[in-house]
């Protein structure tokens, strides 16, 4: 983990990071308490023992609640990251939201890059549970954005209506949405839109700030299904990421409307490549190219993405660590979706289904959103290949059922390659 600080120190960025992380603190590593950062006048509140503050998680069913024992709470409750982010802040969303009817939610968020280290004793088991046994202490996450490695990836348009790949990226040195100050959030916006302004060719585009958008622009973005609104899900609002809305939030998209970036929603950035039809290969090629160009552009100004070799790309929610990648299609599977083997087929192919409105929506007609289940432990190329191979299999199944032929449940594919 020391390498991260080295990267920060070597950056050409003109922000007083050294003034924040005093020289003495480096030698004791990450486990700093807030006392050292509170000015002389204010005292730090810890009037109650940990047992008095331990949350009541008896009715809870999320990953945080499964792993936060009273002993672990006692161990971590008076720690803070160098920016002042605390355990209580990290777990607030999971305390406030006991459980989700359909999926086991994560129940905690990171406030900055250092959260994953300072609160590793809780994040690690949560990550392990959420990412199929991934051991963040030992395992290394492969990052691979070489889209030329993709085999196939042009789906039958009779079945696949659209293809999409999304991920998130965080700007190293700035706190994440649950914890960021208004200044940091505005810095994220500045850094990102300055980089996006440098994109050329079929990636050239325009930024629409949520605070300054005209009515006409807003309507167009709604019609294009690009506009994101203030989060209403309590999973997000309880984590504090909707503060100061809509300050420093916005949407950027290229003129062709195939490459889209959300600024300061649940993460610093969400990057989306999409198009109608089944050319997933082209979607992924544009995705990789766009990401690499943006990364290059921010590096020119002395910034970089949060990343490390164990957790891959660092995002707000532990569920999005690694690649943060969700590659998927909207696909018509009228027969297969009614087959009782459908869930098992998806499971073995490491795919998940959602409704066409995204997470927590139901399918309309028999059109589904099918995407990869996994995020961490496999590279972007591997995951997209998994989706391509899997969707091809689903289309084959649908075609066979059309002809009255039987289908087979495929053997489960291995998770960590």
């Amino acid at each position: 983990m020391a390498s991260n600080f080295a990267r920060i120190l070597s950056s050409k960025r003109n922000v007083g990071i050294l003034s924040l992380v005093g020289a003495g603190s480096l030698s004791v590593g990450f486990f700093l308490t807030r006392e050292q950062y509170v000015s002389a006048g204010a005292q730090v509140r810890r009037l109650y023992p940990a047992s008095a503050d331990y949350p009541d998680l008896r009715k809870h069913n999320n990953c945080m609640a499964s792993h936060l024992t009273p002993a672990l709470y006692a161990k971590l409750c008076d720690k803070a990251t160098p920016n002042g982010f605390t355990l209580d802040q990290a777990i607030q969303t999971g305390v406030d939201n006991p459980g989700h009817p359909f999926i086991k939610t994560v129940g905690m968020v990171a406030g900055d890059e250092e959260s994953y280290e300072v609160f590793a004793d809780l994040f690690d088991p949560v990550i392990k549970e959420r990412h199929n046994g991934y051991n963040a202490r030992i395992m290394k996450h492969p990052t691979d954005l070489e889209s030329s490695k993709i085999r196939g990836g042009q789906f039958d348009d009779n079945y696949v209506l659209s293809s999409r790949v999304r991920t998130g990226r965080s700007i190293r040195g700035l706190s994440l949405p649950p914890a960021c100050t208004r200044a940091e959030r505005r810095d994220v916006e500045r850094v990102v839109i300055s980089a996006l302004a440098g994109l050329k060719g079929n990636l050239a585009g325009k930024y629409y700030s949520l605070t300054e958008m005209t009515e006409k622009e807003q309507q167009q973005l709604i019609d294009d299904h690009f506009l994101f609104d203030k989060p209403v899900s309590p999973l997000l609002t309880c984590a504090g990421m909707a503060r100061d809305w809509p300050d420093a939030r916005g949407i950027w998209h290229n003129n062709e409307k195939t490459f889209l970036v959300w600024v300061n929603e649940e993460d610093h950035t969400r990057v989306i490549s999409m198009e109608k039809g089944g050319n997933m290969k082209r979607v992924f090629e544009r995705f990789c190219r766009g990401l690499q160009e943006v990364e290059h552009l921010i590096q020119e100004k002395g910034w970089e993405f949060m990343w490390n070799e164990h957790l891959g790309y660092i995002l707000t929610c532990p569920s999005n660590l690694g690649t943060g990648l969700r590659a998927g299609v909207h696909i018509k599977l009228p027969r297969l979706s009614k087959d009782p083997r459908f869930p098992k087929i998806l499971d073995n192919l490491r795919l998940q289904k959602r409704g066409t409105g995204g997470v927590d929506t139901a399918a309309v007609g028999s059109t589904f959103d099918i995407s990869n289940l996994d995020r961490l432990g496999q590279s972007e190329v591997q995951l997209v290949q998994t989706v391509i191979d899997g969707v091809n299999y689903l289309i084959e199944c649908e075609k066979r059922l059309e002809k009255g032929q039987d289908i087979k449940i495929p053997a489960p594919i291995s998770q960590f390659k």
Partner: protein
Amino acid sequence: MPFNCHNDYKMKFSLEEEYPDLSQHNNHMAKALTKEIYEKLRSKSTPSGFTLDDIIQTGVDNPGHPFIMTVGCVAGDEESYEVFKDLLDPVISDRHGGYKPTDKHNTDLNWENLKGGDDLDPNYVQSSRVRTGRSLKGYTLPPHNSRGERRAVEKLSIEAMTSLDGEFKGKYYPLKDMTEKEQDQLIADHFLFDKPVSPLLLASGMARDWPDARGIYHNDNKTFLVWVNEEDHLRVISMQKGGNMKEVFKRFCVGLQKIEDVFKKHNHGFMWNEHLGFILTCPSNLGTGLRGGVHVKLPKLSTHPKFEEILTRLRLQKRGTGGVDTASVGGVFDISNADRLGSSEVQQVQLVVDGVKLMIEMEKKLEKGESIDDMIPAQK
């Protein structure tokens, strides 16, 4: 609120970078928070760690309300009102009719000082109610408190309430452990409060850890009710059907006195000072924190063009029968005192009693097709 507690880290950013964008905003905080005041106060923190951004977060997140000018800021503890005077004094002045930093607030919970009030016409007045809030000294307030503190407030409150006897004898229902049956009964009685949904409240952090340490106490007669750890440490309500406001107010004053005695024994008496009266989370509830009102049928008067003016002159406000932010149903209105700070409890309830009495007379006149022009009151 926990999300803004890393204040020292924040100080390395400039005023310009941190000052909130209030250009679309219309609330008391946005009107008062100039860049100069933000700069002066941003480095400060109360002893418990509540900061300026904590105070204003709800007002930044909620630019305005369609019907009322919201306050847009909250206190996190008793000291907030002192440490952040430069912001809160102008907000208080704006909200409470020009109340000055040097003014003194008069507290009078002597129910015997109320004149009349026991004979509001029950053909018009369906129910009478008085509520207020109280904060326990030595604990931080709902936007800021930790789970440990909130539980301590609950524990002490339970002790205070279970010590009550006579007409106040009753039972405490913690939200966490309520049975389905108890829940249904409390809903049927219109007693149950639920997790706040208003973004005004949520953005300030007072709904954290719901429903931990929240609960409801009511007496067996269902005329005295206490909410624990909702928007304030305590909300105390006295109510009954019909128009005997005097009885409601008497029960209110006596009940409050009884529970205060228990809290005082534990050195956690009510937060109060001679300038601001009773200290509550929202600056709009300072002073008496009292809302005394009736549900009253005024179908004709409410459609009279001078209705609003009459209310204003009587220092009253109307709400729908669902409470704040609801509309009236079937000509029945919730009429209550508009003031909280600068006049006493007795004075405020007196205004309600006298004002409602007058409005009922007006309604009767209008029923007979007579004019009420000569009854329009002077500004109180």
